[in-house]
């Protein structure tokens, strides 16, 4: 088994990479660092991930044999390029250059518009366990605007690009924590296309396997 994720099974980035590996059928192991603080150790910075902030260093890091790669979406793209079609038939990035371009576009919507407000809320309320009514109010407005766009994007479609892709995968992990650990699931559920899309992607067998592994 050559693929190893370095990280904690509560980090949404780590969970996204796990989901990707499960979907592609690639066996892997997980190595938990000694602690969150250890992510800022000189050795980790030099040999795993060079960026850190006041809170912590960065995960996930993926080691594939001697090869090390960081950053969730880059890791997922690499895994797809290398392993898609090798263990099963699941296609996360289509071979057609135009379809692949649109998957990339939806991944960009995820990191530019969807994840920022959702992550901010999840980090504050679920991970830091802080109650901040002002943040909830601004988050609701921002997330509502984004979900209105998604409601239209998903019109007549089961998934963002028609067929299930890496773009859908990358939306799952932060959203999961909204549904599992906050009372804001309603913001998604009151929009029919969004609700059906979320039900579809969160009920995939591979995601259920990842949820079982969450160490919170």
């Amino acid at each position: 088994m050559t693929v190893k994720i370095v990280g904690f099974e509560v980090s949404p980035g780590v969970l996204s990479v796990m989901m990707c590996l499960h979907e592609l059928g690639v066996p892997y192991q997980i190595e938990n660092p000694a602690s969150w603080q250890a992510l800022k150790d000189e050795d980790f910075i030099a040999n795993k991930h060079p960026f850190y902030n006041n809170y912590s260093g960065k995960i996930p890091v993926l080691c594939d044999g001697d090869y090390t790669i960081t950053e969730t979406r880059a890791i997922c793209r690499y895994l797809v390029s290398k392993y898609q079609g090798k263990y099963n038939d699941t296609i996360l990035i289509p071979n057609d250059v135009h379809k692949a371009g649109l998957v990339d576009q939806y991944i960009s919507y995820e990191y530019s518009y969807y994840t920022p407000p959702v992550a901010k809320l999840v980090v504050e309320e679920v991970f830091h366990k802080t109650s901040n009514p002002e943040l909830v109010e601004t988050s609701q407005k921002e997330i509502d605007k984004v979900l209105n766009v998604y409601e239209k994007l998903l019109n007549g479609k089961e998934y963002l690009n028609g067929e299930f892709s890496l773009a859908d995968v990358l939306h799952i992990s932060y959203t999961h924590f909204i549904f599992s650990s906050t009372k804001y699931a309603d913001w998604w559920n009151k929009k029919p296309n969004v609700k059906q899309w979320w039900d579809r992607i969160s009920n995939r067998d591979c995601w259920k396997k990842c949820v079982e592994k969450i160490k919170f």
Partner: protein
Amino acid sequence: MTIRLIGYSASYPTLRVIICLKELGLPYELEPPASYQSLKDEDFIANKHPFGKMPVLFDGDFRITESRAICRYLASKYQGKHNDIILIPKDVHKAGLVDQFISYELSYYDPPLSKLVYQEKFAKKFFNKDPDPEIIKQAHEELAKVLDVYEKLLEGKEYLNGEYSLADLVLCPGTNYVYGAGHSDLWDNRPNVKNWWSRLCNRDANKKSFEEIKSFWENN
């Protein structure tokens, strides 16, 4: 079949795509929107960008948005067709690292950089707001820490992934703005970073693109 790029060349995500088109030797037509406000029109939202943003690229009937996704698409489709420039290596491991460095740019480099672009170049001129010195100071300090990491990443290398790639391209347009807006010390005080930026400025695609922008700012 022509490539149409909807955007303002002065907007650095649009310029990112322009540089990419030039690097790949691709002809294109630039269509500036009527105004910033027109990006929120019903028609633009429905037929161009659902979040009201630029750039938008049309390749024949095919529409794609988001500058880095557009660049990846152009590289996938056209690299090697008009010239020898390789923006995304064929080798899956090298391509993975290019992707990693693009992610560093969007996650760590661009956030403080974009604040400085807005404050120094756009706030007063386009939105009639005075630059905020506190935001500028914080963004400058944040970018300094990021460039400390880049200084190490560039040790013994000419470009982020060894050879020139999309990873270097994506940060050129924003850097050009901030470098020329009184923050050149951020790059010049770090020898590896300084040489790398100098190398990037010498590329034809960048030279031409930065010249085009210069005349925009002089005339507006």
